[in-house]
């Protein structure tokens, strides 16, 4: 299980975030004491750190710089301060991503997933495998035992999102939010159209019933 360290001073956000990450199948490590974060990180060896810039005592930037000195751990900055300078500083200090509060939950999860995947192995090709399908993110193709089909940008992102959450129900709203984060602005109707097309292509690959509609809840692979 991937461990995610949560460095966040707001108590209710920290608790809710921990709960959320736990439900998503991660092992959250909420930090209460900000005095020696480096020692704590070295002890626990998390796979990812969610770091609030505005923690009391010292600012998140110096914490990050400190961490990067001894460890190669991906850091996602989370901040309530929405200024361009902060973003530049955060990314130049070795942060892997930068999210401003208040964030959308599906987008946060998608970012966490992508940072973890990026760190897992840059050499690994961008492949997602689930439900008898192999999705090649770089080429935009999906293949099964029966053959290969090319996907449009929208279909690719929808299928990738569903495959990453294989077995779970992904609500339409969450799906739309994640797509928006990838600059695909589709509305409810367009989503239906795209899913229908996607089903058609999967049917050609011999998997017609792969994407199930859960009425009133969303889609499920």
């Amino acid at each position, binding site marked *: 299980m991937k461990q995610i360290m949560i460095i966040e001073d707001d108590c209710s956000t920290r608790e809710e975030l921990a709960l959320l990450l736990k439900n998503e199948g991660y092992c959250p490590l909420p930090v209460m004491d900000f005095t020696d974060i480096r020692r704590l990180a070295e002890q626990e060896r998390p796979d990812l750190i969610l770091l609030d810039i505005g923690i009391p005592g010292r600012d998140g930037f110096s914490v990050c710089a400190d961490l990067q000195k001894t460890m190669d751990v991906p850091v996602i900055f989370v901040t309530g301060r*929405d200024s361009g300078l902060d973003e530049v500083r955060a990314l130049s200090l070795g942060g892997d991503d930068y999210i401003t509060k*208040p964030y959308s939950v599906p987008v946060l999860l998608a970012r966490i997933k992508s940072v973890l995947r990026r760190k897992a192995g840059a050499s690994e090709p961008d492949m997602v495998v689930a439900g008898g399908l192999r999705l090649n993110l770089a080429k935009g193709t999906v293949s099964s035992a029966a053959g290969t089909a090319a996907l449009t940008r929208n279909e690719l992102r929808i299928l990738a999102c569903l495959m990453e959450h294989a077995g779970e129900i992904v609500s339409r709203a969450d799906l739309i939010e994640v797509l928006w984060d990838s600059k695909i602005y589709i509305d409810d109707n367009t989503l239906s159209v795209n899913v229908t097309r996607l089903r058609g292509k999967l049917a050609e690959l011999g998997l017609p019933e792969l994407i199930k509609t859960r009425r009133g809840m969303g889609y499920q692979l």
Partner: protein
Amino acid sequence: MTIREFLSDRLGRLIFQTVFTLTAAVFLRLTGTEDGIILLLLLFLGFCWAGMQGYDFIRQRARLEELEAIMEGLDKKYLFAECIPKARGIYERRLAELSARAGRAMIGEVSDARAAQREYREYVESWVHEMKAPITAAGLICRKAAPDIRGKLAQELAQIEAHVERALFYARLESPEKDFLASRADLAEIVAQALNGHRVLLMQSGMKVETENLSQTVYTDSKWVSFMLGQLLQNAVRYRAVEPVLTISARQLGKQVRLTVHDNGIGIPSHELPRVFDRGFTGSNGRARGGATGMGLYLCRRLADCLEIELGITSEAGKGTTAVLTFPARSGYGEFSQESAESMEAEGEE
């Protein structure tokens, strides 16, 4: 100061001196002085007096011109009293001292007001950042609520966020140079930021978003532009009609980049169009629907001025509204490299 003004200023003294001199002449005449001598004396006195007045006039006028030149050259006019050369006469010196004291009191007041304003700005900024924490927490807690409640809460939270954001930018406007960070930015990124910031609002209103040709490079502060776009998006949602569609497109206009945000909403009556950028102006639509603050477009205009973006709004009642942002020409270095790259590409294609 003209000679006429100078003399009319001294009219009382002039009359008094004339009366006094004439009385003296009458007295001399009565005591038996010859007419010739009296005439000579009068001429002499008159000559002396005219000479003195002339000298005073020239001196005063020169002094005034000097002071006016100093005033003209001053950037902060209220520092005038500190900058004038030392006065000669005791009377003028005292006057200068008094005005210097008044000036110093004024400077004190000004710097107090500045400090207060800065403190207030800092407070608003930190307040905004602190507000983000509970909004985030509420958003996370909201996930556990029933779907219908979740949607409504998310919408309310989005409203709070929008108001908080406006407060932040209003505070920042007071000293724009402090936050302004112009850099090379991709218009598509900026639009994505704005759309993502208003995703709840846009999705729940059923707004269809179409983007077109947004991969343009602009040199500007992306946060500010994204805030401005956010205001336009909020307006598009608030004044939407049935089947709302929002079209965001860009195109290159010579060295400038023009971004167009078009909606098919209820539009703005033509007689209200000239006032939409006024502070606090809500218009008939705003009053009819409620919730309008009259701040969004006002802030947009102020920010656009700082960023040297031309901002224009056209609208047809019942058909929709179009906002056009024209970004200034690219700055020196970037422009060169960009264009040379483009021309090289073009050559390669041939």
